[in-house]
């Protein structure tokens, strides 16, 4: 008698918690043995175009959206990731536009084309978005791995299905209505589902950030000099000369505050960069500091402010 009273309550309780737990599943990422040492992890990575096993469900391309979202989150980790546009350009230049064919390329060929240590390969196995009645659901099932192009080994891989759901099993009526409204925007619904998938996944991917930290060094600028003097008012055709001394063989430029950016500097002797800017009649700069910049090939920039004079335009000269 007692059992019959408890069971009607117990069954829905278990079912409810089952649904709740299903919503917050973790991504099961398998890291292949021998690839846990962060010092051995690849440095540069390219994310190859993702494929979709099924035809595009609607006007959106969930695999492309998923790739973009993956890149946004993956960049947070300590890999040097090639921008997606660059990857696509390099592949396109090599005559490769079919995503499925790209996945079949050998590691050697991929390395030659992209010039990176590893690639991420993604296959969206299924993607669906459905809103009907009180039921709303968006799901993405994908298989993703990282292929080390130096060795040809797969470093890690995962196959996971992420689903956002609202319906009869939602705890409240408001949740059902909110879920329905959110699911109607297909693009947004896929993006949100992809985000949940990836936030969970990123926690599992080995992050080599700590291995590189010691190596980070910005280009050094020893000094910066300009012909600007305190209280000097610039007039049209006046020329601001800038010279800076720093690490040799880099790209140099200077900014006049945020008003004029990336004015090129020329390296006249190793480590000595000079450049100039001629004030135009239309220029109206006020109290701007000159900032010298040296940029290395890996994109790191060193900056130095010239604090002994500011660029100030003589407003009376235009009157």
């Amino acid at each position, binding site marked *: 008698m007692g059992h019959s009273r408890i069971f009607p309550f117990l069954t*829905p*309780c278990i079912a*409810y*918690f089952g649904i*709740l737990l299903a*919503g*917050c599943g973790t991504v099961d990422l398998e890291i292949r043995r021998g690839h846990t040492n962060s010092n051995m992890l690849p440095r540069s990575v390219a994310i190859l175009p993702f494929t979709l096993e099924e035809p595009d469900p609607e006007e959106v391309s969930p695999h492309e959206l998923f790739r973009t*979202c993956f*890149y*946004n*989150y993956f*960049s*947070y*980790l*300590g890999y*040097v990731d090639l921008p997606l546009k660059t990857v696509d350009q390099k592949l396109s230049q090599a005559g490769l536009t079919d995503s499925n064919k790209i996945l079949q390329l050998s590691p050697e060929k991929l390395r030659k084309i992209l010039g990176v240590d590893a690639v991420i390969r993604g296959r969206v196995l299924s993607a669906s978005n459905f809103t009907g009645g009180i039921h709303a659901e968006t799901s993405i099932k994908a298989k993703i791995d990282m292929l080390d192009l130096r060795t040809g080994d797969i470093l890690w891989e995962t196959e996971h299905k992420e689903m956002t759901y609202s319906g*009869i099993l*939602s*705890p*409240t*009526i*408001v*949740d059902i*209505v*909110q879920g329905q409204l959110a699911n109607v925007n297909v693009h947004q619904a896929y993006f*949100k589902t992809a*985000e*949940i998938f990836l*936030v969970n996944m*990123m926690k599992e991917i080995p992050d080599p*950030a700590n291995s*590189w*930290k010691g190596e*980070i060094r*910005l*280009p050094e600028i*020893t*000094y*910066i000099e300009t012909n600007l*003097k*305190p*209280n000097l008012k610039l007039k049209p055709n006046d020329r601001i000369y800038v010279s800076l001394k720093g690490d040799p063989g880099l790209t140099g430029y200077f*900014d006049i*505050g*945020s008003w004029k*950016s*990336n004015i090129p500097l020329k390296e006249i002797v190793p480590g000595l960069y000079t450049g100039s800017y001629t004030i135009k009649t239309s220029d109206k700069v006020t*109290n*701007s*500091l000159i*900032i010298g910049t040296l940029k290395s090939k890996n994109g*790191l*920039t060193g*900056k*130095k*402010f010239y*604090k*002994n*004079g*500011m660029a100030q335009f003589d407003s009376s000269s235009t009157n």
Partner: protein
Amino acid sequence: MTSLTIAKNISGPRWCRPLGMFLLAILISGCASDLQTKVSGNLNSLSKDQTVAILPIETSHAGQKEMADMFRQGLYANLKQSHFNLMEKYIVDSLLKQNNLINPANFLTINPMQFGEILGADAIVFSRINKVARSYFIIHSSIELSVSVQMVDTRTGEILWRAEQTEHDFSGIGKIPTGIFTALFAPIQFVTNKFNLRKMTSKMLDKLTALIKKPENAETNTKFENLVIAKKATTDLKKIAELQQLKAEWTQALALDEETKSAVLQGETPQETRKETLALKNDLLPPTPLAGGGIQNKVRSMVHKVLAVETEMAPLATVPEPKEQKVATPTPLNALKATLATPIHIENHGKPPREIVKPEKNIKNVPIGSAAFYTVQVGAYKTKAYAQNLLSKLVKKGYNAFVTRNNKKIYRVQVDKFKNKEDALKLAQLIQKKEKLKNFITRATAG
């Protein structure tokens, strides 16, 4: 479309309308969000050539670290969709660590320009988790998140984006549970499941970053009316301007001082020197009865001011001092040494007789005759002890040195008395050569 119009459009039996309105009201109030965001017009000028660094998130409570990490990751992923280039997180963290900048609570006290030099970034994003509150009471639970974000241009100190957002969501009777079990367990699940916090953070970031991802969509009410400069940058920019002004004046004063000294050495009378000085530089210096001394004092006070301002602007103790400052700071040594040879007796004519410092025990008393004489002045001090110190050194070396005090209470260390200027000049050269003391010849009268 407002909730009212939506409610009006709901067709069906009469009771449906109030129910519809009720549901809509719940929808709106159930997940409340308060967002205040503004951008600068200059945000549009950031392109992929400009780098933005997201600094580690400041928290108001130690238990918010996980939320802070989640927020930073989400902010990074969202800003990756914007017009500018984002600096990789591990590079930012590494450079901050190298400079011992590990406490996000201190970031706002550092000049953005300094971050520009440390990180090589064109703009930086400061963020703070103001509140993460989770509450539970039997059939009701809620989560409240509050964050503030600010993006500052390191080149100008301008605030490019500022936003504050509070997101509030709950689970309970107000959301109309679908059953008795959900009424009991959903509130527990709501506050304990990290997934909900993540979902709320994600939702919050969507709204928070919507404007910065597309700043061209900014309307008048979401744009700064005027240029807004970060507080720390304003202070330091003012200091830079002040420093530049002081240096400019200092250079002028030094040049003037050199002229005065050379005029004295050439044997011009103090009166003539003063007249000429004032005639030449009347626009630079106020007519003062002690033109030479005035210039010196001005130079000295400027040196002090410049040093004071530079000290205030010095980088944090934790940051290696930029070499630039050494290069950029005009060496004040000449100016300071010059005080040893200041002609400060120019305006003595017709004034009360100068006070002679009473000889100390170890100081040789030098009798002052009544007639005019030439002497070599090697120092002038406001503090008697400094004058005595120099005096004793010179006396020990056998110089016939003495100290006098004028009506401005300046203690002057002078050496010997000569009838003719040539003899004084010889001694002046000797002192300069042997003692490396800057000096000049001055004409004085005793009494």
